[in-house]
């Protein structure tokens, strides 16, 4: 009776975790979510290591351990995911630094842009006027969210 190859199954579990973590950062809403991309990368590497260890056992001691065929499949899948994780990690960080952007304590440059109805709105206006007719005082602050667009 040959033993179950636990390395392979531990590798598969980590592989699934890495896959889930690779998708999670976009929607994560908890403190420390910034570590998720790093964790995804780490788990992707760990999955490949575990699966290769399992495959090595199955090849070296086929009388004792199962999983030679599965080992090759898992190695291919986990290697592919690692390549994908690395590319995603690299790609997601290819954004220019914001060193010259307005920082805390500086004045936010005023601007005037069109809203979704085509009406011109300025920052000064947003800061000075109540957001809705039902309110009678201007907002205490305005949150400016610059996003990449193409949604």
């Amino acid at each position, binding site marked *: 009776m040959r033993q179950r190859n636990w390395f392979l199954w531990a590798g598969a579990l980590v592989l699934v975790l890495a896959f889930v973590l690779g998708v999670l950062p976009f929607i994560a*809403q908890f403190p420390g979510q910034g570590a998720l991309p790093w964790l995804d990368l780490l788990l992707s590497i760990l999955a490949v290591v575990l699966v290769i260890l399992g495959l090595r056992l199955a090849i070296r001691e086929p009388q004792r351990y199962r999983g030679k065929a599965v080992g090759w499949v898992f190695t291919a899948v986990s290697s592919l995911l690692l390549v994908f994780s690395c590319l995603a990690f690299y790609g997601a960080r290819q954004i*220019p630094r914001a060193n010259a952007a307005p*920082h805390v304590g500086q004045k*936010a*440059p005023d601007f005037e842009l069109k809203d979704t109805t085509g009406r011109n709105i300025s920052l000064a206006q947003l*800061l000075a006027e109540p957001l809705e007719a039902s309110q009678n005082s201007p907002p205490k*602050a*305005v949150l*400016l969210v610059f996003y*990449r667009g193409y949604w």
Partner: protein
Amino acid sequence: MAISVDAPEVSRNLAQKAGYSFTLLSDPDASVIRRYQLLHTRGGPEGSDISRPAEFLVDSSGTVRWTNFTEDIRVRARAAEMLAAAASIN
């Protein structure tokens, strides 16, 4: 409120689909994005210029009180941290 290079019609669709009630502003030639030093040259599809992700909280005097500049486009400011920053302004 949110700013991108998307045209007003595109932003209107997004707001409708997602149910956003906040103001979405269009900066199609990225002039304001440039003024805020946030331009991501050829960062968009087909090599168009777009904004890098960034969040600013501006108080009623026009002064920046809180910022967030991510290093990874997959990681954005959380609603809770933005609300906390807003709550700290009197």
